[in-house]
């Protein structure tokens, strides 16, 4: 064989190898196409009749939470939608949330400053994560990624993650998590593509954790004490729950705490920023949460500057501290660890630790505006 021939042969081999590699990569990427959707109906089932001893069921359709066309996620009777005033950022996913309690049972609001709710056994919380294909048409075609259930039995909550199939006809129970390539057109009309990460079952408790006991997060009076649309018309959620008979001893909305919607620009900046930090960070960053180790407490009720991060040095932040000294340096958002960790996507530095692979630009802007507006003198 001449040298020339050898080179050609080698070149062809190399090309072949390169091609086979790129083909493999293509296969690995989850290329979901709306064509895959099979229009299906939920089976006729009543959530009132499920056997709690057999939870978790294999499929989401085994519970009877929804009726009619599958993708509409229309709740069955006594499955009530709810929505917290401020919501956790999860890579721009849309969420629809529902609660169900067994007939004749009701929750009770605790007299603490958050209005923590005590739920009866067999309460189920249902949270769907989905992406409209076009964010300009949120009610239009969508892709549902996962449904997370929290079920209370024998006084203890447990989380059960369900991952939706490509046909969008049902979701099945999977404990080890998953990775999905998700694509959508954002409000500005630009195509966004991310690798959405479905957490594994035990990662649920990375957030749903108070003193190592699993707890729900969004269902506290402070998150629910505002008006949303129900099929029968708009109502304050707590009022609605009381009238549905699933809330004990309810007085009137003013008797309970409430938190603002961080997107509501009519509210004071300070409250919006603290609402953002509460729902996005304070599940861990509170005295009862896993990030108590840091001494950084970001719950809505926290008032002590040092605990909120003002002139607070990190403890175990590692490279998460970037090149900065303090969690919050008043007046200098770009020199604060808090905003650095909200902005970066480097695993191990990005905060929250799970639930996002992208930066929440709008949330980051809010916190930066808040920090930049702080008066340094006030803390010296």
């Amino acid at each position, binding site marked *: 064989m001449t040298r020339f021939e050898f080179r050609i042969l080698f070149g062809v081999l190399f090309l072949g190898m390169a091609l086979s590699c790129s083909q493999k990569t293509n296969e690995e990427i989850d290329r979901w196409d709306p064509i895959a959707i099979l229009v299906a109906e939920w089976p006729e089932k009543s959530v009132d009749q499920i056997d709690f001893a057999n939870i978790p069921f294999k499929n989401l359709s085994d519970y009877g939470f929804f009726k009619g066309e599958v993708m509409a996620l229309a709740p069955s009777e006594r499955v009530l939608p709810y929505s917290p005033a401020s919501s956790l950022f999860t890579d721009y996913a849309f969420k629809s949330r529902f609660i169900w309690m067994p007939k004749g049972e009701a929750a009770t609001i605790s007299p603490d400053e958050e209005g923590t709710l005590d739920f009866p056994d067999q309460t189920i919380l249902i949270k769907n994560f989905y992406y409209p294909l076009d964010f300009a048409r949120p009610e239009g075609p969508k892709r549902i990624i996962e449904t997370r259930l929290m079920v209370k039995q024998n006084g203890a909550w447990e989380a059960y993650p369900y991952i939706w199939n490509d046909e969008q006809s049902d979701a099945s129970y999977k404990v080890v998590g998953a990775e999905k390539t998700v694509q959508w057109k954002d409000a500005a009309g630009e195509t966004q593509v991310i690798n959405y990460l479905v957490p*594994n079952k035990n990662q649920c408790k990375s957030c749903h954790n108070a003193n190592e006991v699993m707890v729900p997060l969004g269902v506290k009076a402070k998150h629910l004490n505002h008006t949303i649309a129900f099929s029968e018309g708009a109502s304050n959620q707590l009022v609605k729950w009381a009238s549905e008979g699933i809330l004990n001893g309810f007085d009137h909305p003013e008797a309970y705490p409430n938190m603002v919607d961080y997107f509501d620009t009519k509210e004071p900046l300070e409250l919006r920023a603290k609402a953002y930090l509460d729902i996005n960070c304070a599940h861990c960053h509170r005295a009862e949460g896993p990030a108590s180790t840091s001494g950084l407490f970001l719950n809505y009720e926290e008032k002590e500057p040092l605990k909120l991060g003002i002139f607070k040095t990190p403890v*175990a932040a590692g490279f998460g501290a970037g090149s900065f000294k303090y969690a919050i340096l008043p007046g200098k958002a770009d020199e604060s660890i808090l905003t650095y960790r909200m902005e970066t996507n480097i695993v191990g530095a990005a905060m929250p630790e799970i639930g996002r692979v992208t930066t929440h630009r709008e949330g980051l802007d809010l916190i930066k505006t808040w920090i930049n507006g702080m008066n340094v003198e006030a803390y010296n």
Partner: protein
Amino acid sequence: MKTQNFRKLYFWILPLAFLFYACSSSTTEISFDSSKLRKASQEEVEKVIEAFILAQDGDVIEIPEGFYNFKTQLILDNKKNIQIKGQGMDKTVFSFRELKTGGEGVKLVGNEILIQDLSIEDAPGDGVKSQHVDGMTFRRINVTWTNGDKSKNGTYAIYPVQCKNVLIDECIASHSKDAGIYVGQSENIIVKNSLAFGNVAGIEIENSDNAEVYGNTARDNAGGILVFNLPGLPKSDGKGTKIYDNNIIANNHVNFATPLGEDPNGNTVTMIPPGSGIILLAAKDVEVYNNRIHKNKTVGIAISNYHITGFPMDAPNWSPYSSNVFVHGNDFKRTWRFPDLTKEFGQLISVYNAHGKGKTQDIIYDGFFDQSLAENILSNPMNICVQEAGIEKLHFTLFDLWEGEANIKASKDYRPFVCQSEVFTDVSHLTQK
């Protein structure tokens, strides 16, 4: 022909590379090569994840030999009496190189948990973290990072925090960007017969009570063994640490906690000067004895107060002062190497010590003290005791930094600190494990 040339080159590069590394004091030494292990299949990997998720009280999770590539965290959620067992640290390897979310590779919560005979590699955050565990044993585990570029390494290798009754035995922790073995906000602790190398800090006890650190080797870190108390934490202060029978050798590694040339950030560890054997910072009730403290180019033992950091010191139930420290019977050997000039603390020691510029120090005391207790440090108000044979030949420096950089004073006079003290620890119940 080509291969032979390459081999020749290799023959020359190896010693050159070795020299280069020896000079620049950075190491990527590996304890063994995990790439030669059998790769576990996807099913085997998922089986381990499920074993953690579905674990019931009393389970023994046995993991066969192999290299396990995890893309998700391994979390044990509040279970009792769990044993996680590999086939040996060079046989069962968990790699978290491809972990895409979450802080630590392995997270353990519960009571009476044992993890042994395996390796954990390349977690983006911490290697193995245990939190709120009463009865946590790490035995013969090796936690490391295999990146050539150490700036990509994670924070802590072995990281128990808010735990009780912690035993770390015969473990290896290397190449952490912070501390290799870090025990934080915990009580009743033994760290023994372990090896920490190539980390920024080898072994660190922070805001913890009742700890004994013995029989370990801390070498080639920027700082060998640290006892710190930081302000503003739920466990506000810690006391009672004994450090004895350790080899604390050549901790001259570059401090890579921040990128080269960048100033320290708010993490205290970023200020550690390369060449530090033992550093006490706002430490209470610490006894340091019978250690071999050799060839640490900047300082053998530094006794310091939180003032040295320049950070705010206003925190409840916490004191910035180191107090009741007893240093005795240690074996010091200095090195010919020039002490550190890359960190402010290093510059202070190198330039302003009482024995002459560029002289390695054996023991330094930064000289801050609680002025409500005494007017003058010569009465030894913080009860800092040093009893070393041949102390007159050691390089001891007492600084006076009250007037700041403008007027740094240093004295060789060790006499006010020649005294004995007592430090109480009791971890005998942990030695039965």
